[in-house]
């Protein structure tokens, strides 16, 4: 058929146009939510796709000043759970990934295989016994309990990413540090961990997004009595005002904003992290 070089004219306008159109169709639902965050609730159903000029902040104001503080309490819980979980997960899985990547024994390979099976286990399958384990530890309905469940569930992913990356670090580097008298902790923290920065960025971004957005685990583990995360808060809020799109959209917008900013801040590093480990490993 017509090759791109021989018929530049016919295809030069077609591709950008088609690409823009397809992306526009894909983006339409998000556009609808975005413009309607900045409209008073009564304006939404009559003009769902109209651009809000001037923007109205009544819906956002309403969410921020709710008498039950659903948004603010949820935000505090989400930040706490996500920040603690991903910090601990990054350290723990970097150390475990390093340990398993450098262990040559047969049992280390077995441990790795069992660990990687965890990548495909749905949380719905284990949630009920997880609540029992947490209850027996006295951590059910607490934030530390949710953090612990997150660590167990996501450590395979962290190990998977770090393992691939540790293999790209020459073993000689660690041996040289050992000869200079550095202990295992010194070697890990001063030599290995700084080199793992791209992998750490990917783990932080992916787990940050997943844990922030998690729905069923916080719903069940935190329970109704001890507040919720912002994500569960959206679910609670739709029960109350079914057709009040303005406040629901505003709540979704405010709940997504922090993780979106976090994602954009780390985005540059994490693509490098994933491919770096994959191509050289």
């Amino acid at each position, binding site marked *: 058929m017509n090759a791109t070089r021989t018929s530049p004219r016919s295809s030069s306008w077609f591709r950008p146009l088609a690409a823009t159109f397809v992306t526009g169709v894909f983006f339409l639902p998000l556009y609808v939510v975005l413009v309607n965050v900045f409209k008073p609730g009564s304006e939404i159903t009559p003009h769902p796709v109209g651009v809000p000029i001037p923007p109205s902040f009544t819906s956002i104001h309403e969410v921020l000043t709710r008498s039950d503080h659903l948004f603010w309490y949820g935000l505090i819980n989400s930040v706490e759970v996500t920040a603690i979980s991903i910090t601990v997960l990054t350290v723990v899985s970097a150390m475990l990934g390093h340990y398993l990547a450098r262990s040559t024994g047969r049992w280390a390979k077995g441990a790795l295989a069992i660990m990687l099976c965890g990548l495909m286990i749905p949380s719905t*399958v284990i949630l009920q016994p997880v609540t029992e384990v947490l209850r027996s530890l006295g951590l059910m309905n607490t934030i530390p309990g949710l953090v612990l469940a997150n660590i167990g569930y996501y450590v395979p992913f962290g190990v998977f990413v770090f393992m691939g990356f540790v293999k790209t670090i020459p073993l000689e580097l660690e041996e040289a540090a050992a000869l200079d008298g550095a202990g295992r902790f010194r070697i890990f923290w001063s030599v290995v961990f700084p080199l793992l920065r791209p992998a750490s960025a990917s783990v932080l971004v992916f787990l940050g997004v997943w844990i922030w957005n998690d729905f069923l685990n916080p719903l069940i583990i935190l329970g109704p009595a001890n507040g919720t995360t912002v994500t569960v808060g959206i679910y609670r809020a739709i029960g109350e005002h079914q057709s009040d799109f303005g406040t629901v959209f505003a709540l979704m917008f405010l709940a997504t904003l922090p993780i979106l900013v976090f994602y954009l801040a780390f985005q540059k590093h994490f693509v490098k992290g994933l491919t770096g480990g994959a191509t050289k490993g």
Partner: protein
Amino acid sequence: MSATLARPAGAGPSKAGPGPSKTGRGTRPPRGGRRVTKALHFLTFGAPGMIVYLLLVLVPIAMTVRAGFTNRNPANPPTHWVGLRNYRDLLHDPAFTGALRNTLIVTVIVTVAANVLGLFIAQLLDRSGWLYNALRSVFFTPVVLSSVVVSVMWQAILSDDGLLASALRGLGVEDPPGWLSDPDLALYSVAFIITWQVLGFCVVVYLAGLAAVSTELLEAAEMDGAGRLSRFRHVTWPMLAPAVTINTVMLLITGFKTYDQIQVITNGGPGSGTTSTIAFEVVQTTFTGNHIGYGSAMATLMLMIIAAISVVALRFLQRREVTQ
């Protein structure tokens, strides 16, 4: 931490010991000391992650499998072994077989649609320049969104008094379809919503795959007179095999796990169980219905099916990667 502090005493002059242990350099540490060092290395580096994983993933799996052979129900003690009765009952339980059917339909639609659309869109966006950069980031946005946000967004658009229905009524459509309220449509609407949500991920994976396709090879094929279709069939497609593997396995597992969208949008309805999935049925049975034994049997089956899918899909797709 206490293990770390105790290490030098037990480790002796091992080369891994901290501090001025240069005297030990080159000399072999005694066997016992070496074993202690190894054990301490495991305790500090390996153990923390493994213990939490053991306690909050492996032990719960064992508990689920075990409970599946009992009639456990906190509201109706005592608990005793029932052998395979739960599994026999499951096969004749329309709630379960219906959920299995729904899950398979969603999984197949999502896997096929997201793969096909993802590859098509990635081909379309596989150019450089500011426009394509911008369009690519648009496609990746839903990856950052919670499935609760995605579900509520589509519910606001597709429900009977939602934005699409009122827009259609404004255009003179008398009776817009009940995307989420019609028992024959709701499941397909859910599959559509999940496809939309995962599409961005597929596009990104395919774009990465396309970037690895060598332009020299494509140009050589073009010189030899290969048309656009045969260039895709014989050059691009075989080189995309790893991307196809990643996407297909990811989509199969995502489809099979479907829970959030059902819980938020349809709650299994309209009617009884028209959109319920296995994961939804598991949570309903164990948490809402308190039938922990029966629900655990269901969960065990689900785990086995997912393990089978992963193994078969990986084997099959990797063979394609090797042979082509």
